[in-house]
């Protein structure tokens, strides 16, 4: 498949880097201010030189000398939307996907914004297009959460829950293990690059909530006989509590009783809830550090647990490229 990668952060760069290994060719790469578009697409060597793109991004902060619009207009089969997640109108990611679908091309999203905030609009665009959308990378990084729910069939999944934010999980794990308070562990996480300078998105539960909203949309639209009857979820429908004010003493009390606290997200076709919850210390959901886990509750197949790396460039790119493979 010929890929146009929009967004040159850790995920976009990893997709560019790994696409060849998966048998795909990158024909265009864009970041917010620049782009590089391949001249021809006749042979497997005619695509974008991915090493050069990654090097230019690192050295000069640009991916090439073309205009970002040129990448959207390039001759690709699949658009990879890997720009940063934005809320509300989910722009510019939403428009990038719309452009691809209006051109009857596929789109694979690593950007949570459009699938969490405008799922209904996306479904409408897909209905009028020969293109499809996929978005495995938006939930749980490398973990195949969306495709597993699809395989089981959303109508036979009663709930999906789990630990879906590695930063918050790292902080809770360290607080419990070292008996330290939130502020102390946050500073450590920032030093290690596990938490961002502004950690709000992770520690306030927004990121986990977006993932659960996406899962709720998958469940709701997937289970409905007629998509018009499906309930659409956005972040505003989620009940969200973060971990910012969880004191170290609460974690100690939990540990005395063989329990611990994890930021757990839960999605059904009717509700989305993210909150710190008490779980057994050695239980399945008490994954450590930056690990994520997705637990799927099914009607006929019991409970499935999938844990793994919930973030990271190559990990998320592997989910993106898995989606590209499903579109072939």
């Amino acid at each position, binding site marked *: 498949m010929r890929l146009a990668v929009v967004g040159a952060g850790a995920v976009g760069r990893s997709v560019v880097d790994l696409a060849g290994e998966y048998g795909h060719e990158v024909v265009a790469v864009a970041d917010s201010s620049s782009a590089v578009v391949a001249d021809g697409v006749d042979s497997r060597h005619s695509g974008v030189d991915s090493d050069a793109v990654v090097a230019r991004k690192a050295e000069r902060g640009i991916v090439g000398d073309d205009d970002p619009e040129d990448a959207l207009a390039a001759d690709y089969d699949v658009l990879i939307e890997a720009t940063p997640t934005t809320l509300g109108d989910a722009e510019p990611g939403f428009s990038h996907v719309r452009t691809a679908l209006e051109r009857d091309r596929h789109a694979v999203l690593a950007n949570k914004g459009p699938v969490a905030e405008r799922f209904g609009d996306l479904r409408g665009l897909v209905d009028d297009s020969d293109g499809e959308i996929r978005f495995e990378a938006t939930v749980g990084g490398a973990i195949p959460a969306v495709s597993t729910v699809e395989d089981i069939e959303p109508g036979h999944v009663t709930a999906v*829950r789990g630990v879906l934010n590695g930063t918050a999980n790292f902080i809770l794990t360290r607080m419990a293990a070292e008996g330290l308070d939130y502020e102390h562990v946050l500073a450590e996480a920032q030093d290690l690059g596990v938490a961002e300078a502004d950690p709000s998105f992770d520690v306030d539960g927004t990121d986990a909530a977006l993932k659960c909203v996406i899962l709720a949309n998958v469940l709701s639209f997937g289970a409905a006989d007629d998509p018009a009857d499906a309930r659409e979820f956005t972040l505003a429908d989620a009940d969200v*509590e973060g971990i910012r*004010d*969880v*004191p*170290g*003493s*609460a974690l*100690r*009390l*939990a540990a*005395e*009783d*063989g*329990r611990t*606290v994890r930021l*757990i997200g839960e999605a059904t076709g009717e509700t989305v809830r993210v*909150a*710190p*919850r*008490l*779980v*057994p210390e050695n*239980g*399945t*959901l008490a994954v450590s550090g930056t690990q994520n886990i997705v*637990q799927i509750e099914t009607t006929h197949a019991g*409970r499935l647990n999938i844990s793994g790396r919930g973030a990271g460039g190559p990990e998320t790119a592997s989910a993106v490229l898995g989606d590209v493979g499903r579109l072939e």
Partner: protein
Amino acid sequence: MSDARDGVPEEAADGEDATPDGGHAATTPSTHTVRLELVDEPGQLLAALHPIADNGGNLLSIYHERGNKTPRGRIPVEVDFEATQERFEGIVEALRSEGVNVMQAGTERYAEEVTILLFGHLIDTDLSDSLSRIEACESASVADVSLAAPQGTEQASSARLRLEARAGETEAALAAVRELADEKDLRLVEPLTGVEA
């Protein structure tokens, strides 16, 4: 024996007429649960069971929570037995006169146990009032409280509460705690109920 009377459930202490099902309760055996606190020494459990069997209680189950400790560092044991109301009173008296600490005795069988964390200004917002209000919501009783206030009573503190809820009423009990937490601006960490496996 006045000490022993303190442990007898109120409806029994008030006399037979006060029991909800009148005279039948005194003669029909029903299931009772007592929660005992034992010192972790050999023979303690057996010593606690004798007064029950010797006074006409028919033992049904014993839940010896070895992994748990009460706030006083002892081991909680929950014993279910069948007895008439009259014999039940005698059993509780006998246990106490043997020196066994009866933490809780009642005809109500609490089938579900749920542990929660509360944190915030627990002490400034009157912890004992909070606990009595949870007790007042008929779905649950507070079995155990552990408090941690590492920065003194004026700073935020944390508490772990073990609630015993009636069968099928865990959600109602949690709803009552949620409401209390909202009102007092406390944060509640709920368990993931029904998921633990």
